């Protein structure tokens, strides 16, 4: 080996050594970041378990709202029919619109509003039922996507550890190689050629390790995108539940409508009593009785509706809090993973699949074997040329 070759190989040895040391430091940072991201995913999965358990009250919520819709709808129908008949009777008897018929008209308006409210409630109940089903579905999808993320992170963690080992070996090989060159400067052409082959094999291995890192990073970028998508879906679910919650608050107006119907029905009963005396028509007496029953029914409806709406609100509150917490945690994981990957470099535009990753690993192992063979050949040549044992390791 001449002086130029010796100098070149020494420089190469130093460069490989520095590169390997840097790669090892980078790998350590990557491992720590991946561990943090993995812990965060585990945390979300644990939360998800709790959320799934708490999604169970959704059918109860739907039932409460459907009950309110039924009770309100029934009351509205009965009220409307009574008021309509009262209007017809008042018109047949030539009653003035400003009197009895007017009260009946006002009650009809309230009944119509009640019927619209009942229809809206029914729609809300159906919407809640659909939302419950889609929330469970989204929960299952989210779980699958997070399980996948956890698996990818575990794999990346294992890859990181293996890369660390490989880098450590490469650094050790480079150091030993440089030391061997230093001691064996006069080893001759055959040893020089073997040293060049050894250097080339070590370079190939460095390239394989770099590709491995890139491929792992590409998979992690995809995981990050999945997590962000999951976060957006969860945010959508939160908005949906918030909208239902807001509608429920609006429906408390129905309760005051029922109270108003009760008040007007009592007024109608009194007026019907008066009309019965005035016209001596027994129909008004019957109306008075019916109106009193209506007033009682409206009061019961108001109480029952209020109780059920309060129950519905109590059910929706914790569900909403859980969903919001989940969104926040997902964002935290995505941010953590993003930070780790930005340190890694690249954007992961090309997504690697599992088979590609395995292929790179196979190539790396092959080059590692090639490197070991080259080192053994070099050792043999040096031994043969000098009869000494060089300080390779």
């Amino acid at each position: 080996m001449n002086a130029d070759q010796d100098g070149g190989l020494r420089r190469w040895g130093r460069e490989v050594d520095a590169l390997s040391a840097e790669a090892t430091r980078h790998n350590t940072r990557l491992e720590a970041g991946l561990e943090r991201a993995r812990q965060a995913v585990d945390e979300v999965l644990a939360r998800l378990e709790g959320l799934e358990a708490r999604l169970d009250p959704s059918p109860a919520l739907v039932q409460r709202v459907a009950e309110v819709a039924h009770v309100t709808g029934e009351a509205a129908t009965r009220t409307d029919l009574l008021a309509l008949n009262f209007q017809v009777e008042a018109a047949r008897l030539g009653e003035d619109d400003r009197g009895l018929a007017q009260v009946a008209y006002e009650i009809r308006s309230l009944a119509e509003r009640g019927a619209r409210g009942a229809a809206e409630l029914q729609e809300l109940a159906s919407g809640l039922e659909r939302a419950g089903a889609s929330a469970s579905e989204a929960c299952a999808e989210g779980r699958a996507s997070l399980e996948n993320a956890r698996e990818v992170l575990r794999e990346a963690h294992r890859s990181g550890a293996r890369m660390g080992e490989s880098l450590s070996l490469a650094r050790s090989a480079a150091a030993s190689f440089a030391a061997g060159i230093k001691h064996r400067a006069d080893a001759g052409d055959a040893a020089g050629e073997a040293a060049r082959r050894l250097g080339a094999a070590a370079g190939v291995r460095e390239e394989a390790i770099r590709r491995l890192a890139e491929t792992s990073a590409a998979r992690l970028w995809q995981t990050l995108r999945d997590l962000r998508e999951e976060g957006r879906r969860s945010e959508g679910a939160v908005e949906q539940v918030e909208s239902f919650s807001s509608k429920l608050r609006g429906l408390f107006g129905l309760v005051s409508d029922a109270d108003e119907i009760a008040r007007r029905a009592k007024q109608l009963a009194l007026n019907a009593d008066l009309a019965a005396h005035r016209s001596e028509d027994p129909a008004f007496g019957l109306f008075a009785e019916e109106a009193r029953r209506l007033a009682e029914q409206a009061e019961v409806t108001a109480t029952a509706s209020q109780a059920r709406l309060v129950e519905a609100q109590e059910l929706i509150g914790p569900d909403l809090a859980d969903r919001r917490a989940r969104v926040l945690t997902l964002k935290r994981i995505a941010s953590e993973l993003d930070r780790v990957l930005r340190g890694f470099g690249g954007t992961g535009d090309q997504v690697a699949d599992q088979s590609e990753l395995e292929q790179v690993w196979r190539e790396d192992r092959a080059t590692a074997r090639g490197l070991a063979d080259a080192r053994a050949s070099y050792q043999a040549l040096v031994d043969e040329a000098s009869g000494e044992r060089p300080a390779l390791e």
Partner: protein
Amino acid sequence: MSVVRVLNVVAGGRQFALEIGVVQGIERPRRWARLPLAPSYVLGVCEIGGTVVAVVDLAARLGLEAGPESHTGGVVLLDSAEAVGLSVEAIDGVGELDLEAGVDLGPTGRAAGARGLGSGGRILLESEPLVDGRPLTSLREILGDAWKGSE
């Protein structure tokens, strides 16, 4: 004929009116029994306040396609010798119909079950031809352009 007090109803997706004097009341029966061999416009019979009432589908009786159902539909009980009710798609309540500004259809209209055409296109029905089973001529033909205008 001038301004009459009426019960406003909807049948076949079109607005009709019944003079208040012929209306006995309004009901929303939950179920009724079909009558075999009855004309197609007879929906069946139901029990209302202890009386068996025959229910006629007003839209079918007038030869109209059924319109969309609504929660304000029901049966208008007629004040007639026979206990008969008209099933309608919606009951819009009591109002007034100005026939001065409309059209008195005369005997031709009565043959189709209608008494006149009020302002705004609402058709005032004649109850008797609707329930006595006689064949009715087509309202659409009698009203001509006015039928389109009342849509």
